[in-house]
């Protein structure tokens, strides 16, 4: 079973629907016992980092999540869930979870894209990922596959935690973490078949380590 970490993130039901479609048993919950019993945790997120951290800290859910990560429970952070695993986000000047060293920065709208014109912010739409290290989440996914992004801030973790990059004006980190603790800036639940495959891969990995 996968648990979708419930802290009222806007996309948690989208993740739930995608897992249902894949026939992956799953539950939206923030009950520490149910989370501990799950094979893996999906940590969703959409909207603003500050608001997400407020939701997490006011009920002590931040400590619940951190302790699961310390116990090496497989975790997949998505979008804002990916960003707030870092130390800090420029968005709302937010102190984040400090699970992975690094920070989250605002795209600079003066960066120039491949057409020679300034980028639009937010970065919204389909983009590709270049893996810097092998990552089992991408097993069976073509390198030219696109994933759906929508964000104005991008993760900038310490170099050794960068797993994959995406080019928007310049390369930024679109996947970071380590084996079993992955944080993706894009939305696998909204990325068509490649995204569903990634969720399936996360489930397979989670089942393998239990």
């Amino acid at each position, binding site marked *: 079973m996968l648990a979708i970490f419930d802290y009222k993130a*806007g996309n948690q039901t989208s993740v739930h629907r995608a897992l249902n479609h894949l026939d992956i048993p799953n539950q939206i919950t923030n009950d520490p016992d149910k989370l501990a019993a799950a094979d893996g945790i999906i940590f969703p997120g959409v909207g603003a980092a500050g608001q997400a951290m407020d939701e997490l800290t006011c009920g002590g859910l931040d400590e619940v999540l951190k302790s699961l990560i310390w116990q090496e429970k497989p975790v997949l952070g998505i979008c804002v869930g990916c960003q707030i695993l870092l130390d800090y986000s420029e968005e709302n000047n937010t102190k984040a979870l400090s699970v992975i060293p690094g920070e989250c920065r605002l795209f600079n709208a003066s960066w120039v894209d*491949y057409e020679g014109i300034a980028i*639009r912010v937010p970065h919204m739409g*389909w983009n590709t990922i270049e893996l810097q290290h092998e990552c089992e989440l991408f097993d069976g996914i073509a390198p030219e596959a*696109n994933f759906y992004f929508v964000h104005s801030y991008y993760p900038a973790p310490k170099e050794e935690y960068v797993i994959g990059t995406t080019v928007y004006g310049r390369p930024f980190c679109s996947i970071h973490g380590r084996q079993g603790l992955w944080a993706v800036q894009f939305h696998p639940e909204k990325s068509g078949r490649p995204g569903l495959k990634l969720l399936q891969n996360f489930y397979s990995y989670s089942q393998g380590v239990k």
Partner: protein
Amino acid sequence: MLSKRIIPCLDVRNGRLTKGIKFEGNVDIGDPVETAKRYYEEGADEIVFYDITASSEGRGIFLDVVEQVASQIFIPFSVGGGINSVDDMRAVLSAGAEKVSVNSGAVKNPDIISEGSLQFGSQCIVLGMDVKRVEKTKDIPSGFEVVIHGGRKAMGMDAVEWAKTGEALGAGEICLNSIDADGTKDGYDLELTRKIVKAVTIPVIASGGAGHPKHMVEAVTEGRASAALIASIVHYGEWTIPDIKKYMADEGVVIRSIW
């Protein structure tokens, strides 16, 4: 590299898919859920649903459609039509839409944009704009005026100014429909598109006038739009989404080629 998006637009009335020309003479052309699913499987990058039902009964049917779509397609989709309050936004977002498009509701009450973006995040607030060419005047210096009610009512607002205002209030994207080009199949209004793209830094979707894939190419190159909205060109089977994408890729446009 960020791909240019191709977005089919589905007009829904009383739970059925319709397509009218210049917002009039709507005819039933199928089931919206089945059609959305087919477009998803054919590689649409996003889907827009527009509720043109007036009654509250029709609204319930529409929300039902949104829920069914959300459990069957795994790409983003937005919902517009009849969004006049934060509660209306919440209803479609909780039914499973990623984005909500405000149009005349925002013209009448611009605060709905800021309230919505505060509540749900600006990434899910799309400002839909219906725009008509007019003579340049002191009030409409760009020569493009905002209209509502399917183009029947002019608002005395300059489209370029309204786009800037919408961005400042917190819209995350603009869906820009040319009333003059809509239904003509002669191509998008590139002058309008480019003007709005230049005025804001958020993504702009060009809408109205697609009759051939070359028009989509123009919209994202000359027009500099981030995406192109299409309707009858695919609804009536003249072109399929894979053929459109292949055409665009052959013209050098960066598109999502596998899905």
